């Protein structure tokens, strides 16, 4: 799956979790810019992404996420495999 397509799907998840239908994210979007992106919402994001992409993240992958780009990397690797 192309990165742009993955980004679009992640954006859908973010819009739902943060209840912001017009929210726009990019690969460099990080929790620093999104005030509501806290540990509680982060768990919900992970659960939603696992469901959406039918994948399971490892704790090592969760540890290495600093921005949306890192999330896309994890998803792309998992889909490839």
């Amino acid at each position: 799956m192309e990165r742009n397509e993955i980004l679009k799907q992640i954006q859908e998840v973010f819009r739902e979790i943060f209840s912001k239908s017009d929210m726009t994210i990019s690969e460099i979007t990080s929790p620093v810019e999104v005030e509501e992106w806290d540990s509680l919402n982060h768990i919900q994001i992970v659960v939603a992404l696992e469901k959406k992409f039918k994948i399971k993240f490892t704790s090592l992958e969760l540890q290495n996420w600093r921005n949306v780009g890192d999330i896309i990397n994890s998803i792309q690797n998992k889909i490839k495999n």
Partner: protein
Amino acid sequence: MNNYFSQILDIIKKQNPIHYKRLNKMLSEQDSEFTIRAEKFFTQYVNYLNKNGKTLNYAVDCYLKMLADIAYEHIKFLESGKYSSSSFNEVLQRVYSNPQVMEYYMHGLLLSQFLWEQHYQILKFFTKGILQRKKQINRYLEIGAGHGLYISEAINLLNKDTLFDLVDISETSLNMSKEFIDEKERVNFYKEDIYQYNKLSYYNFITMGEVLEHVEKPLELLLKVNSLLCEGGEAFITTPTNAPAIDHITLFSNVQEIRDLMKKAKLEITEEVVLPSEKVTEEVANELKITILYGAFVKKI
């Protein structure tokens, strides 16, 4: 002043922006007492790290790895409604007998003592309660060595003729706690299984912090605590609800389950504190399975 808290924040900022936000907010809400206590603890910890050829960067890496494990366990917990381990043998294989896991886990837990607000709040609750009970305590037992913070507070606050005993089944834990206990020469350290420990009806105060969730039969352990207390003796016990972790076995789904267990063990709750790990009510925490740290002073009945 070394300002280790700031150094820790700087390291975390680069690696885990979500957690950095949380810690930064937490720090901004704390008073000078927190700063003094935290810096004292971190100074002891950094000395311990240096003695063992490790750095603060290493310790923070361990802490972040532990956080990732907890996040992973929490996701599995939300799906299954159960902790991933249910027996002591499982966690023995997975964690306690696995030196690589134990290494990062112990360092992670140590840092959490002042990086997790609930841990600090419960330490303050303990300190206040011990001071109020000072006159009744001269034989003190701590079950589970941990970080040594509770027993250090007790040594600091209680009378000079108080006897201090500390029991842990793990030599590693006992040795680590010695690094953090002020006036360790006043403590008798026992490497022993608490179920075999036989100073029955001896102690007028027992502390057992975050041990119940690690055992298969928490009622048995509480009954043991009761048996070690003299008549009218008291204990301080803490344990969390909905707290999946790599070595947690017993799941308490809400605080009432803990209260009910205390009652079965003939331990009457005299004071308690309920600390959700997010800024939500107890009811919302239970509904969303957000961890609550529970602490209580209990009296033998």
